[in-house]
């Protein structure tokens, strides 16, 4: 016990003073002098200690006894705290440095929407200024309706792609992560190039399809004229011309589908607000089918009279693609069913056939353009390979999900599942 020995030393010293005083004549004077000496000594140590604690960067004072022990302990504690703090600071600096150096923009946003920190890339991408903009609401500086809505929604499952305003316009993709007490981390990457390339591709397909139609019309026009008078043609020519006409027709429907697809693609992100009466759509489709397959009517089962918000022509083309596929891929007497019914939280449209079915491994690739499960069969049926791609895009544009269920040899079910929020 350091303390005990220090205190006993003091008492011993005072007692010795008293003894000396008693020997010299007055013990009280001796005790008082000794006590004063102790007080003076301790005050001096206290003063040195306090002086050092004010600025601990100096080396600790060389004080004797328990005071020296205390100084040493404080000094050790202080040193270890200092190193811990340095280590922490360097970790924080390191992390912020690595964020700063990132090519993607990073913004840390406080729970109330105020900017806490942003890196250089974010300053460039969003036009922020560091450090003046710290504490400003991010929505006051970015000022885009869709950006505000996205941040307000609290649903960050899907990243947001948006175009900035101001001098240079960029397409940005933003991923939002929430952490600790409602603070959010915004990751921004520049996707301007990607969006432009995608736009060019869509435009290109659209333009090429459009340009190819005119020459094709001339070719089919002449072919039809020649074939109108087959008897006057030499036999080998007639066969060749007929095949040419067949291929020209195929090419026409291909171009028609491609154009339609690029139109759907370009309007995919537009809000669709027309009320579509799906039961009436199915009835109209059944009428059309009865003129193509007179003895195989489309079996309808409408158990729900609700419509959805959308675009009639797009939905019609999607459903008719599904139904016609059903006919193409089932035997000459296979039946096709279409049903429209409400379920918990969604409305679904099912198209069921009793055809050849599809192997589930093929499902993910079915909606790719020009993908065919069985090349020879598709060519014979006159398909363009774009049908399901159209269905997929129409589904996405209407916030619906395309579900496929099938087994080889047991028919297939294609379903369009519309979220209930889509209806009025």
């Amino acid at each position: 016990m350091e303390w005990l020995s220090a205190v006993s030393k003091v008492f011993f010293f005072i007692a010795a003073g008293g003894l000396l005083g008693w020997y010299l004549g007055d013990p009280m004077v001796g005790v008082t002098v000794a006590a004063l000496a102790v007080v003076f000594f301790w005050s001096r140590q206290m003063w040195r200690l306090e002086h050092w604690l004010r600025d601990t960067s100096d080396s600790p004072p060389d004080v004797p006894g328990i005071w020296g022990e205390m100084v040493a302990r404080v000094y050790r504690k202080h040193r270890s705290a200092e190193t811990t703090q340095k280590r922490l600071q360097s970790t924080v600096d390191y992390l912020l440095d690595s964020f700063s150096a990132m090519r993607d923009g990073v913004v840390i946003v406080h729970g109330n929407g105020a900017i806490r920190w942003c890196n250089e890339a974010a300053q460039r991408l969003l036009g922020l200024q560091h450090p003046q903009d710290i504490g400003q609401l991010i929505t006051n500086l970015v000022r885009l309706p869709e950006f505000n809505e996205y941040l307000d929604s609290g649903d960050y499952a899907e990243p947001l792609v948006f175009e900035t305003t101001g001098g240079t316009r960029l397409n940005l993709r933003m991923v939002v992560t929430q952490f600790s007490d409602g603070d959010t981390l915004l990751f921004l990457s520049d996707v301007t190039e990607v969006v432009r390339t995608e736009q060019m591709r869509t435009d290109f397909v659209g333009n090429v399809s459009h340009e190819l139609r005119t020459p094709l019309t001339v070719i089919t026009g002449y072919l039809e004229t020649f074939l109108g008078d087959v008897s006057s043609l030499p036999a080998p020519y007639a066969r060749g011309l007929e095949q040419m006409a067949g291929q020209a027709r195929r090419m026409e429907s291909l171009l028609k589908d491609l154009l339609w697809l690029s139109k759907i693609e370009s309007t995919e992100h537009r809000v669709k607000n027309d009320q579509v009466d799906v039961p009436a759509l199915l009835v109209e489709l059944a009428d059309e089918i009865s003129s193509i397959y007179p003895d195989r009517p489309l079996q309808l089962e409408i158990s729900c009279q609700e419509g959805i918000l959308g675009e009639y022509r797009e939905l019609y083309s999607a459903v008719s693609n599904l139904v016609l596929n059903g006919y193409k891929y089932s035997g000459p007497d296979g039946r096709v069913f279409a049903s429209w019914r409400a379920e918990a939280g969604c409305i679904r449209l099912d198209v069921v056939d009793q055809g050849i079915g599809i192997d589930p491994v093929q499902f993910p690739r079915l909606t790719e353009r020009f993908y065919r499960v069985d090349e020879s069969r598709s060519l014979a049926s006159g398909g363009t390979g774009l049908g399901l791609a159209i269905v997929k895009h129409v589904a996405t544009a209407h916030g619906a999900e395309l579900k496929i269920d099938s087994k080889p040899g047991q028919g297939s079910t294609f379903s369009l599942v519309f979220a209930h929020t889509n209806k009025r």
Partner: protein
Amino acid sequence: MLKQEDYKQHISEQFNTELEEIKNHLLEMGGKVEKQLIEAVEALVSRNTSVAEEIISRDHEVNQMEMRIDDECATILARRQPAASDLRLVVSVIKVNTDIERIGDEAAKIARQGIRLADEGASPTNFVEIRHIGSHVASMLHKALDAFARLDMDLAVDVVKEDNDVDKEYGSAMRSLVTFMMEDQRNIGPILNEMWALRSLERIGDHAANIAEHVVYLVRGLDVRHQESIEEYIEQVDER
């Protein structure tokens, strides 16, 4: 000089939030109108009538926002009787609010001209002037709103000066359009519609400059409207 933190100094927490709110709502509306403007010009140039119709149908949302902000400002004036910088904030929000709403109206007008121009077919000008002045004016509006958000007086002064450039561009665009009309009188119909759209853009430039002037008022308490040279005026005041 007014600083960002000055709105956080009231004893009443509620008053702080009310002042913050009107500013946030105003900037939200500004962002919406800026987007309306950009889309209107794009719809006109690309002859996209469906986008143009959407823009026209969205104009009422801006009007709703304007009414709400005015209402909030009136409530603050009645309930808090603000003074000094708080009063300047409320007054400038009311003024900027009107300007932003007008810009929204002009954007809808541009969209309407877009529909008309799309119906009329090819244009001899290829909309070069509209494209150019449109992007210039949109960036002015963006800067004016930035200046408001950051209380940045220098940027605001820049915007006010930029309006002179827009006016000059507008003048030369008008002259070139007139030559198109003289060349071929069949052009007169479409060119007149283009002139209306340009006129709207020029008005938007004026409104953006007004917003910037209100920012100077908000930050410095100086009314710089109707001054020959805004910079000289500010210098004069500084010397006094």
